[in-house]
């Protein structure tokens, strides 16, 4: 081996791995099938993004998978009440690896203006999120930018490097994704919400 290219075998192996990663990641990034999880007004912007003027089929999202079994990326568009939390978690669990999540809009990312008893304060307390798209609701350009960021992220992954590979994140024995202290911290009120008291 050493004589073939005058390089160490590690060099050739790394070259080969890079080639494989490039091929795999490009294929994945350029044919993401979204699983739309639209619960509110963000879903309207999502539909606008899918329609002809913005047309995210240009970025490989040609087929919208309305079944999680054939989907790569879960797009949560809209607020998520606690009643839907087990549903989105089950949909996420049903999606085959590798899978990514886009949190679209302020409510899905942080709870937004709905800092109340019924609403999940950010879907990252339920499922791991790759890209947060801010806005209320985000314009289609915003969602497209988020998709392009996701492409970039996918192209940085590696099959051979455990640190750059996405692994399944199952729930722990208490049925939580994050430790309770982290969830409480993520759900802390912010912005205008700090003027409301928990007891009021």
């Amino acid at each position, binding site marked *: 081996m050493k004589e073939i290219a005058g390089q160490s075998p590690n060099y050739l192996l790394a070259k080969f791995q890079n080639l494989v990663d490039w091929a795999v990641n490009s294929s994945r990034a350029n044919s993401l099938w979204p699983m739309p999880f639209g619960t509110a007004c963000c879903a309207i912007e999502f539909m606008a993004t899918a329609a002809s003027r913005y047309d995210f089929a240009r970025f490989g999202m040609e087929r919208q998978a309305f079944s999680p079994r054939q989907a790569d990326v879960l797009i949560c568009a809209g607020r998520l009440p*606690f*009643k839907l*939390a*087990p*549903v989105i*978690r*089950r949909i996420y669990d049903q999606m085959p690896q590798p899978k990514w999540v886009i949190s679209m809009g302020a409510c899905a990312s942080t709870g937004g203006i709905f*800092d*109340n*008893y*019924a609403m*999940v*304060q950010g879907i990252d*307390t*339920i499922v791991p999120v790759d890209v947060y798209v801010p806005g209320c609701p985000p314009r289609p350009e915003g969602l497209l930018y988020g998709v392009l960021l996701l492409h970039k992220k996918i192209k940085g992954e590696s099959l051979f490097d455990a640190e750059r590979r996405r692994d399944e994140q199952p*729930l722990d024995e*208490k*049925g*939580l*994704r994050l430790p*309770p*202290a982290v*969830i*409480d911290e*993520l*759900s802390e*009120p912010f912005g205008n919400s700090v003027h*409301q008291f*928990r*007891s*009021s």
Partner: protein
Amino acid sequence: MIPGVVREEVARDGETIVFVARDRLLEVMTWLKETPGQQFDYLVDVTAVEFRDRERPLQVVYFLRSLTRRADLRVKVELDSATDLAVDSVCGLWRGADWLEREVYDMFGITFRGHPDLRRILMWETYAEGYPLRKDFPLRGRFSRAEQVRQALNANPEAHYSLEELSIADASGELPQEMRDRLLRGERGTIPDPPAP
């Protein structure tokens, strides 16, 4: 004159509000629905009000409409929050009161005596934090966010809605013939023959 009326008011929008004693609600409602000249045959909404002033009683509000007479009426029952929060159900008069009363029960904790199926309707059935629209209910709920997430994630979304429960096969015998035919041949019905040339 409506029997059993405690007092009458005129709302700011000109509608008549009738306050009724709790014990005579069912009697008054039956009278309002069935007496010729009243005929309030449509129950628009059932809701409740709790005031910030703790002294004031809770109110259960019924919005009635007479489709034939084109008249509206608001009926209110005052419930002292110190006593048990319960009124008679009007499901026997208007079937549409079923879900409306469930919603009032879910949000305010007011029980409707004689309701056929008084369960929570908006919040899930294992919800343990109380009644969200009561004034003593904290805006963000009673439990910590972590506990709320834990309870939500451990809920089984299929626990209360099994396929058998959703099936209308059991109810087939009670459906009207026309509806049964429609279901048997599919919602879209039969395709008509093309017109003769």
